């Protein structure tokens, strides 16, 4: 399996810079995710790795060797696109065998491999069907089987789940994850769905505006985003401005002991789930009034007004508060992340 390295890759379309100096590496057999909003350049990066696009500058290395001069067909990286792109005039069997046919594999060997692939994706019954006759999930599985049939060194998945309904997405996701772990193929997944990224990847690269903003393991990414932009992309956040002096954070809600080496003016990022709500208790420092609540099934999202600030809070359904009710808030200060204020 290959180790991938992307070095200083630049790409622009019509004078618009789509990728500005992209750098990251993927270890052998690792599954990483390129996470970012649409139009941030994730798919372009994927196409450059596969060889469908040429970068203006920079290099793509597989196992330490540049592959820019190797044509798409010989690179050993396969993309599975969002639209599956099954060849409509070929049966499922022929679709899966297409890559093998191109590689001039003898017919009997090809049939054997196709059969194995069909078993792997549990579609033995559909081998003679045309893509038109398949459901979304089945098409997806054929696309995966077709890509895996040629035993690629690198598997590139371009939003492969976004055309599926939620339940199917769940199934396919774990299916592909298991497959990847079993076959140990170096995999890059592109998605805009943060939950998907957090669930499946070994590491996540957050891409914003053609740059990698942060590249770390899922938990680290979510708990300590490197900048407010990354934090905001991962979900709505609360920000409180204040000053830090000798490990004490001073803000409009009082002073708190915190662990950070940041100094002076800072912005504290507080995740809504790190805000605890409780019935009014005057001993607590922060009091407020519930302005809005939204029910999402397993959670309740509140907006609380306190000292003319809106504080977002996400809680479980253990205790429910009404709109207009006075409440007290507790912030888990050891989970708060501080940023320099000018950032």
């Amino acid at each position, binding site marked *: 399996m290959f180790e991938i390295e992307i070095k200083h890759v630049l790409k622009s379309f019509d004078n618009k810079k789509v990728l500005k100096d992209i750098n990251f590496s993927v270890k052998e057999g690792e599954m990483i995710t390129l996470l970012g909003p649409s139009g941030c350049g994730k798919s372009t990066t994927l196409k450059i790795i596969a060889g*469908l696009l040429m970068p203006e500058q920079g290099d793509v290395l597989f196992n330490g060797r540049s592959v820019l001069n190797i044509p798409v067909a010989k690179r050993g990286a396969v993309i599975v696109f969002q639209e599956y792109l099954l*060849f409509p*005039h070929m049966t499922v069997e022929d679709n899966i065998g297409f890559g093998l046919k191109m590689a001039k594999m003898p017919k009997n060997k090809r049939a054997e491999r196709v059969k194995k692939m069909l078993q792997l994706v549990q579609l033995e019954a559909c081998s003679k069907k045309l893509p038109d006759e398949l459901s979304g999930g089945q098409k997806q599985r054929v696309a995966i089987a077709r890509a895996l049939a040629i035993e690629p060194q690198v598997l590139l998945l371009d939003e492969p789940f976004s055309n599926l309904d939620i339940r199917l997405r769940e199934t396919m996701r774990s299916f592909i994850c298991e497959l990847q772990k079993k076959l140990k193929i170096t995999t890059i997944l592109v998605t805009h769905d943060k939950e998907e990224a957090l669930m499946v990847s070994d590491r996540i690269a957050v891409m914003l505006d053609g740059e990698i903003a942060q590249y770390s393991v899922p938990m680290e990414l979510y708990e300590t985003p490197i900048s407010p932009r990354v934090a905001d992309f991962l979900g709505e956040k609360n920000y409180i401005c204040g000053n830090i002096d000798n490990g004490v954070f001073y803000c409009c809600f009082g002073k708190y002991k915190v662990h950070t080496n940041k100094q002076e003016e800072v912005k504290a990022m507080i995740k809504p789930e790190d805000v605890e709500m409780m019935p009014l208790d005057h001993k607590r420092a922060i009091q407020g009034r519930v302005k809005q609540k939204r029910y999402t099934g397993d959670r309740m999202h509140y907006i609380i007004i306190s000292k003319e600030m809106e504080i977002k809070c996400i809680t479980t359904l253990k205790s429910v508060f009404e709109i207009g009710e006075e409440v007290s808030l507790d912030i888990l200060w050891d989970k708060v992340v501080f940023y320099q204020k000018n950032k």
Partner: protein
Amino acid sequence: MKRIKKSGYTLLMNTIIFILGFPLIVLVIWSFTKRWPWPCMFPKAFGIRSFQYMISPGSNTLQVLIGSIWLSIVVTLITLLISIPAARALGIYHFKGKKLFKMAILAPIIVPPVATGMGIHVAFIKMGLVNTFMGVVLVHLIPCLPYGVRILTNTFEITGKSMEMQAKVLGASGLQAFFYITLPLIAPGLMAASSLVFIVSFSQYFLTFLIGGGNVITFSMMMFPYIQSGDRMMASAYSLVFVLTIFVLLIVMEKIVKRYYKTHNHFYI
């Protein structure tokens, strides 16, 4: 309500079929008419003189017909050969002046061939292409290319290049991707383009006459004198054969394409 709608639809369809088919019926009647004097509603006498003449060895009709079909097939093939890459470029790639190219490709339809024909004639005399089969084929390309390129451009716009990209990612070379993937995908467009191009070439009269100089005789040139001289019986008979030839060829072509590629309605997804 639904029934009224349905019967209205049937009525409309039947009217259209009648309007399209009626001239053909007249043609059939005329080709068997010996005498049809003025105030009479129906012909006075029937005969098969026209068809007798047509199959008589002296008339050369069959030979000219076959030659004409051959010429148009060659023109169609060359047109497709030029149109496929051109249309691919216009349909898939982005480049400066693309819109201008798209417009310019229609020029032969907008500018009458008479205007350009004379110049081409002179040029062809210099090149020794006049009175030759090749010369006629070349000059037929002029009115045929716009149709070929335009139809296939639309086809490529719909097909896009993603399927080809997928094929390449799976290890296909450029040629393999074209023959295994693109060609079957554009087959319906190819069908449409080649039928239209064939018809355009097959019905050319003026350009064939000018460049062929009487040396290369096509079927439409053969029937023209009859239409001009008012021999309605002969003219109708020839017209009938003309129409039938195209009809039969189109059906044959479609059958062949359908057999090669199971055109499963996948084109307009």
